[in-house]
């Protein structure tokens, strides 16, 4: 079946443990994920949701797989825009692999249908988020443009 897919690979000078902390601890996440709060117990079957600073749930779903320091898979549905919400659940996978003194970090976000608006939308959202996460782990500071929820959105 034809699907919509976004894949991003980067390398970060960090350890799998520190990267895992940065992608599952809400205090870290909001610094590079536009100020959103990511709530979950991070166990298979646990609910997951992303909440804007003003309390709206913008995306939600469930943890499908969780291997600390190695892999996280989420079921992910957009909740704000009706057209994107109607597309249903996408699948988002984080894979962390030690690569010398770096970690190879692969993000795959996909939907089992062609032409997904959600995947198109996240394809422009992920690069700045992941660049900011890398800057946060390597320099101690995330990128300014990704710290706050965009005004008017």
């Amino acid at each position, binding site marked *: 079946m034809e699907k919509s897919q976004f894949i991003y690979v*980067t*390398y970060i000078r960090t350890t799998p443990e520190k990267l895992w902390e940065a992608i599952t601890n809400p205090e870290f996440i909001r610094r590079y994920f536009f100020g959103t709060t990511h709530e979950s117990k991070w166990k298979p079957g646990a609910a997951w949701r992303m909440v804007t600073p003003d309390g709206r749930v913008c995306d939600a779903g469930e943890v499908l797989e969780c291997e600390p320091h190695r892999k996280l898979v989420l079921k992910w549905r957009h909740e704000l825009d009706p057209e994107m919400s109607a597309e249903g659940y996408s699948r988002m996978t984080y894979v962390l692999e030690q690569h*010398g*003194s*770096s970690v190879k970090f692969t993000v795959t976000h996909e939907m089992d249908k062609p032409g997904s608006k959600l995947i198109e939308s996240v394809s422009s959202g992920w*690069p*700045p988020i992941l*660049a900011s996460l890398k800057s946060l782990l*390597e320099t101690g500071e995330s990128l300014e*443009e990704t710290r706050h929820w965009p005004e008017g959105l």
Partner: protein
Amino acid sequence: MEKIEHVYETYIRTTPEKLWAAITQPEFTRQYWGGGENVSTWKQGAKWQHHSNDAQHTVRMTGQVVESVPPKLLVLTWADPADLADESRVSFELEPMEDLVRLKVVHGQFKPGSTMAGKVMGGWPRVLASLKSLLETGEALNVWAGRSCGK
């Protein structure tokens, strides 16, 4: 014919001028680009080479500068000197944003049956991640153990 195009986008806390220099000057590229140096006058129509940083200066990639608008846009043809017919095209777009530069690299226009398309897929993320680390922390990443550029 399947149209393959690799698109990579990242955001680097630097200036367009520094990023342009990092892409085009050998003293920078040798630090993050698999130990290779990029050499050219970078003027439209000029030849460019990516060669190994040793006495042999083995040319690993070569091509022509299609378009050069420093520090905003660089477009190159790209081929392994051992297979010049398998030519493709790489563009670097540098967009300034407050204290960042958005860098978009597009590698496409591969010939039908190209083997280059598969070869570079693993390379670009390493090059760009290492470049970002160099510009933001002063130190490139050691992501090239056991590999050479483009392979």
